[in-house]
């Protein structure tokens, strides 16, 4: 097995003949924070949807720990240890915060098929364990006070935290964050940055799409830049930041001022 936990090899995804992702390749190392940037509509979210099984690419390979996972259904991808958040928050809005986070414990729960109808001692033990874990996560993400509040009633920043807590509850090996800082204020973004570092310290590999350049440059260890579905640059943040191709993609070739 290679040192890369996730390898994307020459992936192409088309929608009705339009190319959304074009011959894209990247390699993510275990334990890394991997940044993906690019203008709107570049195909970043489509890439995440391909990795998590929502879309199946027409060509190429997606290797998870060396094994092909292209075309695997989303729930099996989650069982493999790849969990995600969504660009447009997708919480179970009417359900309480605790119940939302509990959904992350679904794949870790050991309840047997008959436990939906018949409780057994093992079921009670398992149920308690999973709720305990939810309690820990609510504390980690500072959500305990909202335990019984419907997730949809809370502010945007809090909802983003719930979504991360929910994904983390499944004890992922790879956490995929789709614009985690979108809609957050400066203070919340700073908190998020700290949280992502803490998650990395737990040994979780992180892939992240983000438009907040300051944040993505400070967090990422490696960055791929996508435009029109294709990779236009990759490397360390310091390299990508000054790559003329990237600057052109973001600002346009006619612009004089290259720095933000």
């Amino acid at each position, binding site marked *: 097995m290679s040192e890369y936990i996730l390898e994307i090899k020459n992936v192409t995804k088309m929608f009705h003949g339009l190319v959304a992702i074009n011959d894209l390749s990247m390699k993510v190392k275990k334990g890394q924070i991997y940044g993906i940037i690019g203008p709107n509509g570049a195909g970043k979210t489509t890439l995440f949807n391909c990795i*998590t099984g*929502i879309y199946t690419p027409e060509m190429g390979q997606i290797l998870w720990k060396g094994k092909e996972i292209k075309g695997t*259904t*989303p*729930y099996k*991808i*989650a*069982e493999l240890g790849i*969990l*995600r958040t*969504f660009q447009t928050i*997708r*919480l*179970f*809005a*009417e*359900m*309480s915060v*605790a*119940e939302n986070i*509990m*959904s*992350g*414990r*679904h*794949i870790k*729960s050991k*309840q047997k*098929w008959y*436990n*939906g*109808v*018949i*409780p057994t001692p093992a*079921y009670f033990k398992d*149920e*308690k364990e*999973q*709720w305990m874990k*939810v*309690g820990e996560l*609510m504390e980690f993400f500072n959500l*305990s*006070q*909202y*335990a*019984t*509040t*419907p997730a949809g009633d809370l502010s945007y920043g809090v909802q983003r935290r719930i979504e991360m807590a*929910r*994904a983390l509850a*499944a004890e992922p090996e790879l956490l995929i964050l789709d614009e985690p800082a979108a809609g957050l204020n400066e203070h919340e973004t700073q908190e998020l940055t700290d949280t992502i570092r803490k998650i990395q310290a737990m040994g979780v590999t992180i892939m992240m799409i983000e438009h907040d350049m300051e944040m993505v440059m400070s967090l990422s260890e490696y960055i791929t830049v996508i435009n029109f579905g294709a990779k236009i640059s990759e490397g360390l943040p310091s390299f990508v930041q000054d790559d003329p191709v990237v600057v052109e993609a973001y600002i346009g070739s006619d612009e004089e001022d290259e720095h933000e």
Partner: protein
Amino acid sequence: MMNKTSMIALVLLLISGVYPFFVDSAWLAIGTTFLVFSCVAFSQDIILGRAGVFHMGHAMFFGLGAYTTAIMNVQFGLPILASWAPAVLIPMFVAFVLAGPIIHLRGDYLLVATIGFNIIFIQVLENDVFGLTGGPNGIFGIDVVRLFGFEFASQTYMYYMAFILLGITLFIMRTLDRSKFGRAMFYINKDEIAAQSMGVSVRYYKLYAFIIGAGIAGAAGSMFSVQYSAVSPEAFDVTQSIMFFTIVLVGGSASLPGVLIGTFIMFVLPEVFREFETARYLVFGLAMILTMILRPRGIWPVRFGNIPNFLKKDVK
């Protein structure tokens, strides 16, 4: 200290426990049917209210249970008790076989498919397939429950058997709601993509809901056939399915008190207004229209946040 809901539940339990001693036989029969229909409504609620599957053929599973008991008893001379397990298992098996190929369909398409199943079921019954179903007239002369030479023949026994069945149903609903299975159904219902991304197999849990729902409906059907000692096709047609569907929406999807209220309004109230003949169905229709306008989530909507107390310590 008890909360308001448990108080109401306790009072209702006491009233329904002594109900047979205070009413005449007509009202006793209505009470029994109310209990049986509540079980069916709850089983519909597992599929519709929890898993969010627009299933409008539930009378078929109810009928399968009823006909299983009727056929085993009248055509094959087996005791009622021997038919109880098959009356649960056959609907479950049929649910598995029929729902499998349609479970991936989106809401409205699935609804049409389930109505189709219900219509075919009625056709099978009316055409007296294999000479077992008795055709349009159905099957008469179903026995009473006998155990060790004792006959549970009176309507009061019938009432308490239905009472116990409802108790078992409520126990199952409660267990389901507090297990990963019930929660998975809610996650699918609220956001299918998010649920899948958390590792929930949409297909598995929708089928699970169908199979459990069919089993409970089958048990209720068996009870129903013994109560009236007869079964006939029109009791299990699409109109009946629409009623079970409506009970859940009017009462409140996934809400235990809501479904009981729904059953009461849709079934007992029309009985109260029986003297007004067919005009009583005005109640039925008006309840549906008014509830959907005024309380789209049902008369007693479900409340989430049913979590262990130790997680509530920081809640202000």
